[in-house]
């Protein structure tokens, strides 16, 4: 008997959103299949890989990263180099210096950095704030204004600051935002509902539903992502149809497997290779669970994941 393929397509689909402008603008979402199931139907917009760098400069503790950015001695030059990384569809600039529990850099200084980065790249830009809800409400609003017209994506709106960011970034300046919740499907939905109630349209936000490095509670992340995709597609829950964007460099490069020196664990091999493996494994697990884009740090990971996606979709 011959095998008859029955494609599993849904009548609902993931919302499509665009970031960036011009010919290098990218689109996330749009699929009506399970993640990476390109054999069921056209994926529409294959998952994307972004490359992350901090406003404190590239992470020179990792030799491959240091080598990649060698010679780039201004923020603009670093940004340009990052945007040239093979496989990177967008650039993610993280304002780590703005953290009030760290350098607490003034908002206008952070904004000036964002402008320098934005002027140096043509690829779409994601800006990560300080991670402090109160500071980010002010910071991301100011960045949204300064980068008006660039259609950037600002991370993240959380339960404690979504109102200010929704109004200040999306409604006032037409930027995109990420709604961030911590691996909790009910909170993810609730935040989307509340952001929607501010007047933000569904094509203006993505979800960042939390992350963990593979092997470090990742099963919670995977099940949250799968449940969200399931609700969006099979239950047509329009409060859970936003694309998922997952920054994972910080998680992947902070676990023992990535950072323990080779001298301590000679049987594990070179630390950098392990870090790349951890970053790639985590990224692929996120994409298989429902992420529409991942943000990575090591150029080698970016290249590898983009190539894997290219083969799969």
């Amino acid at each position, binding site marked *: 008997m011959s095998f008859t393929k029955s494609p599993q397509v849904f009548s609902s689909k993931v919302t499509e959103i665009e970031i960036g402008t011009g010919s290098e603008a990218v689109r996330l979402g749009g699929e009506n299949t399970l993640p990476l199931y390109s054999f069921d139907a056209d994926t529409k917009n294959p998952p994307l890989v972004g490359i992350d760098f901090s406003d404190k400069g590239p992470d020179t503790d990792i030799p491959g990263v240091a080598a990649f950015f060698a010679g780039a001695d201004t923020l603009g030059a670093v940004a340009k180099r990052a945007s040239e990384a093979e496989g990177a569809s967008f650039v993610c600039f993280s304002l780590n210096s703005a953290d009030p529990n760290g350098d607490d850099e003034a908002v206008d200084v952070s904004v000036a950095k964002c402008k320098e980065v934005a002027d140096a790249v043509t690829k779409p830009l994601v800006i990560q704030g300080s991670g402090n809800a109160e500071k980010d409400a002010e910071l991301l609003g100011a960045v949204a204004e300064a980068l008006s017209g660039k259609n950037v994506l600002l991370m993240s709106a959380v339960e404690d600051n979504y109102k200010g960011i929704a109004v200040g970034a999306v409604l006032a300046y037409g930027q995109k935002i990420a709604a961030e919740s911590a691996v909790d*499907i009910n909170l993810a*939905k*609730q935040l989307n*509902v509340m952001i929607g109630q501010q007047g933000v349209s569904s094509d203006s936000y993505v979800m960042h539903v939390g992350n963990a490095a593979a092997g470090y509670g990742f099963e919670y992340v995977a099940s949250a992502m799968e449940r969200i995709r399931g*609700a969006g597609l*099979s*239950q047509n*829950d329009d*409060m859970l149809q936003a694309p998922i964007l997952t920054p994972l460099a910080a998680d992947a490069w902070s676990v023992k497997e990535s950072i323990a020196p080779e001298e301590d664990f000679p049987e594990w091999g070179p630390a950098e290779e392990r870090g790349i493996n951890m970053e790639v494994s985590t990224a692929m697990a996120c994409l298989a669970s429902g992420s529409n884009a991942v943000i990575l740090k090591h150029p080698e990971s970016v290249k590898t994941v983009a190539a894997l996606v290219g083969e799969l979709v």
Partner: protein
Amino acid sequence: MSDKFVVIGERIHVISPEIKEALATRNAAPIIARGKAQLEAGADYLDVNIGPAERDGADIMRWIVPELQKALDGAPLVLDTVNRDALRAGLEVYDASKGRAIVNSADAGERLPNIDLAAEFGAIAIGLLIDKGVPRNNDERNEYLQVILEHSMEAGMDPSEDVWFDPLVLVVKGMQEKQEEFLEFLRILKEMGLKSTCGLSNASNGMPAHVRPVVDSVLCGMSIECGLTSAILNPLEKSLMDTIKTSEVILNRTLYADSYLDI
């Protein structure tokens, strides 16, 4: 995973003097206003009950169906009359781009041919489980069910999709002992993989106004658990809509969020 519960708004009904007058004078505005309010309150379909309209039913349907759909972004409609010519006239002008028309209704008696009418237009038929009188028990409901099932299959319909069976809600005040059987029949329909609907507010007929929403809501919640997939009701009654949303959360068909009642 079950499909979403379908709410059919009941407020465009000739029994309302306002609607009766609007239909008679071909004044669409108040009818459209009621339709809009119901859609905003969460109705998926609008029931359009023009009564028997023996004299000009076809004209009314030919007029009101496009008026409503044009004004309400193609909102899907339930065409509700015993006048078969009027049903046909409505189906002829119906725009199915936002959802198939529903014929309300066929039964196991004189209105059995409405099944064929629905089939002819690719519409859904409500199969009311009555013949001449109301069903005395579930044996009779089952008898009528078989008649409609057989007829719909002969008409080329898929009875699990194209016919929504209505086991007939009986008034609680006076027929209290019949309610459990009603719920039991919903379970039977569910087990057979059949869809169902009912006119929910029949249950609380004759009760004081403050009691009615409670009775309707509780019956609605219990019915959904038993397998009811749709109901004709007043979507402006918040307690009913809250009951439906909560039932879908409890049955894990909708993901909970603190604001789920506002969605």
